[in-house]
């Protein structure tokens, strides 16, 4: 594992939105992530790839503190996650939610603004309008009052993205958003993300499809419990690294 940059700290912080040092996450005795040193460069589309159970989802959850960290530190623009929460937007996997819940698309998007509202304040016309704008950006303005279970998989994914847009964050952490969606949705999502990238935002995506990695992304993180490789696609997304990533996971004897 080599650190690409030997730049000084302050410079690194200017280039990187997220800095991860010595990160280990273990569930019971099973290490999900082991000793990871990793930086997310600003303004890039970053893919996280690896076999099933490699710890990809765990990685982004660890960045947000959604799973307990066994060792290591994560800093977001130089501060801890809890201090810079509003700079990060999370798009979880579609399967993590019960789509029978009595709520419509607009409502879900509006939930993205709950953090900014804070305790005890109620959603109002301002939040409604913001939510509507975001829904519009993903091309679902006609579906605002559709109960979410009645949306297709791709539409549900777009609602999640709209919710993240409502947060107006600097970093977008997304867990397999392109998994199982239709072509229109994929195109829409990617073009929105491109625009965000142009605004200097960082997009980090757990991606399941290896064929499209070099088409859609600038930077790749290859993980299989350990960090196998991390860097620009052209340099790092090689056959050697792919083989190392996708080989049979070693039994760790602890």
């Amino acid at each position: 594992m080599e650190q690409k940059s030997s730049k000084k700290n302050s410079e690194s912080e200017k280039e990187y939105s997220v800095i991860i040092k010595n990160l280990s996450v273990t569930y019971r005795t099973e290490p999900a992530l082991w000793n990871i040193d990793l930086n997310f460069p600003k303004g890039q589309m970053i893919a996280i790839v690896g076999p099933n159970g490699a710890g990809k989802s765990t990685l982004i959850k660890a960045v947000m503190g959604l799973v307990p960290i066994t060792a290591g530190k994560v800093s977001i623009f130089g501060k801890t996650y809890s201090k810079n929460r509003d700079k990060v937007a999370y798009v979880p996997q579609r399967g993590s939610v019960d789509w029978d819940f009595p709520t419509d698309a607009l409502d879900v998007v509006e939930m993205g603004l709950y953090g900014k509202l804070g305790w005890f304040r109620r959603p109002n016309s301002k939040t409604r309008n913001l939510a509507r704008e975001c829904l519009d950006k993903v091309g679902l303005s006609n579906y605002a009052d559709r109960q979410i279970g009645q949306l297709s998989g791709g539409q549900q994914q777009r609602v999640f993205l709209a919710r993240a847009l409502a947060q107006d964050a600097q970093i977008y952490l997304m867990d397999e958003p392109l998994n199982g969606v239709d072509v229109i949705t994929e195109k829409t999502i990617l073009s929105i993300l491109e625009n965000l990238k142009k605004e200097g935002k960082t997009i980090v995506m757990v991606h399941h499809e290896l064929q499209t990695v070099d088409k859609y992304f600038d930077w790749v993180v290859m993980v299989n419990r350990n960090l196998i490789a991390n860097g620009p696609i052209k340099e790092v997304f090689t056959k050697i690294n792919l083989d190392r990533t996708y080989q049979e996971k070693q039994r760790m004897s602890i």
Partner: protein
Amino acid sequence: MILEEILSIFLGIFTDYTLRYVALGSAILGITSGALGCFTVLRKQSLFGDAIAHAALPGIGFAYLFAGTKDSLVLMLGAAIFAWFGGMITLAITSTTRIKQDAALGITLSVFFGLGIVLLSYLQSIGGASQGGLDRFLFGQAAALIESDVINLGILSALCFTILILFYKEFKITTFDSSFGQSLGFPIKYLNVLLTSVIVVAVVIGLHTVGVVLMVSMLIAPAAAARQWTSNLKNMIILSAIFGGLSGIIGSMISSTAEGMSTGPVIVITITAILGISFVFSPKQGYLFKHLRNQRKSQISLDNIKTISDKEKENHGNI
């Protein structure tokens, strides 16, 4: 003739001293458990209410033992503490062992209740509680509600609704997408505890009116009925509260017509009937309209939004 009778019973709510409080207390129960029941049902914890209702019994016994008073507020406090404790034990069992939630609920329910029975028999032998105490716990005492009871229930209910309104969006996001809520900074664990606590209060109100066995229906049926009519959470809560309150009032009215008819069971039968009606007649999900729609559907082409098959649609509204 019948209309006159119904009218006179209805007016009785306002004029008849006892009936007034029975109806009011039952309505308060219905409204509160209707509203909060929406959350238990959406969190897939329908029978949780049943378990913690049974777990409350020893609390009443201990409250009487230590406070020596039959003051209903003290007893309700005891009930609430043990109900809450029962809830925590259930969660502890499921999170620390491989025992699943249904068995954990059964364990809590039966063991706590057994302990309660032991306590009550002890109290009986030292000449304290009467058998009537247990009856009231089992079947509620809607018919015996007096003004002070109703005031207490009203205050508890108001407390529940205050918390519900204050934390509405937090409860909503906790129930719908807790990891997203956590990423926004909401302390999901504490919100869950708060929500459980409010449900405990609703259960204590229910124990007072319809008793332990029937309590669970008042948490589920109004919410399930409301879900048939709307896909919007706020409307579902309001409608569920209305259904619950209505069943409380109608139940008291009907039970007042016959000598010795318990109020609690009638309320439960009423709300179950409302549920049945909702199943059949609701415009979106009801069987009647579905049938009519299916007959028309063969003439209308599906729009290409519906990538989900119709079969999946039928499963929506699953609670």
